């Protein structure tokens, strides 16, 4: 699992330490990955900077997108249990 946002490395480090995260948090400060996946929310942050639309994208060993969930509202998040079901399915394929 890889997390990704437009955060600066210092902010991401603080978040990782505070929450004891054991996965990589990619710092897409240039928004290149966010843009490449079509997930740019222009002026979405409180300070009006561009950030990512919250989304889960599952990629198989061949690099194909096999499943995704893109939030339609700021509060909208998929249930982690549903994500785990998809991840287990992709591992068995």
């Amino acid at each position, binding site marked *: *699992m*890889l*997390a*990704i*946002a*437009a*955060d600066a*490395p210092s*902010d*991401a*480090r603080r*978040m*990782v330490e505070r929450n004891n995260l054991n996965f*990589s*948090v*990619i*710092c*897409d400060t*240039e928004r*290149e*990955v966010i*843009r*490449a*996946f*079509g*997930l*740019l*929310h222009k002026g*979405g*942050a409180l300070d009006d900077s561009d*950030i*990512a*639309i*919250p*989304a*889960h*994208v*599952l*990629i*198989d*060993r061949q*690099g*194909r*997108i*096999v499943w*995704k969930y*893109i*939030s*339609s*509202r*700021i*509060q*909208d*998040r*998929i*249930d*982690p249990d549903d*994500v785990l079901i998809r*991840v287990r399915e992709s*591992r068995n394929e």
Partner: protein
Amino acid sequence: MDKPPDEVHATGSVVAGLGLMFAGPLAYALLIDNPAMRSSGAVAVGIMAAGGVLTLSALWRDRRTAVRILGAFNLALLAAFVYAFYIGASLPAPSAAVTVETAPDFTVADHTGTPISLREAHARGPVLLVFYRGHW
């Protein structure tokens, strides 16, 4: 026999309605770790809708100005919450790129400065890429 409208007092209903308008968002904050509640806001809106019904019944029975003002305030809170939650918080639709079948490759540093290559990562096994809005 029914009292004429100007003698009926429904202060309790309209004040209870106000309480429910605040109880709704409070319940939302308390239940935010539940994904379904966080996404739908069902509990908050349900509580506030009950407040709306109480308020409307008070406005119907009690025609005094103070009750009308507080009732209008209650309904404005309900409308503001529903608007902010369902319309104000809308996110833009993703652009076409995410509909592609093959994930665009990238190599970008993570929080420790280590370069992360998507191609190398998915070669080791399926990758769940989680885009989030930012730290807080």
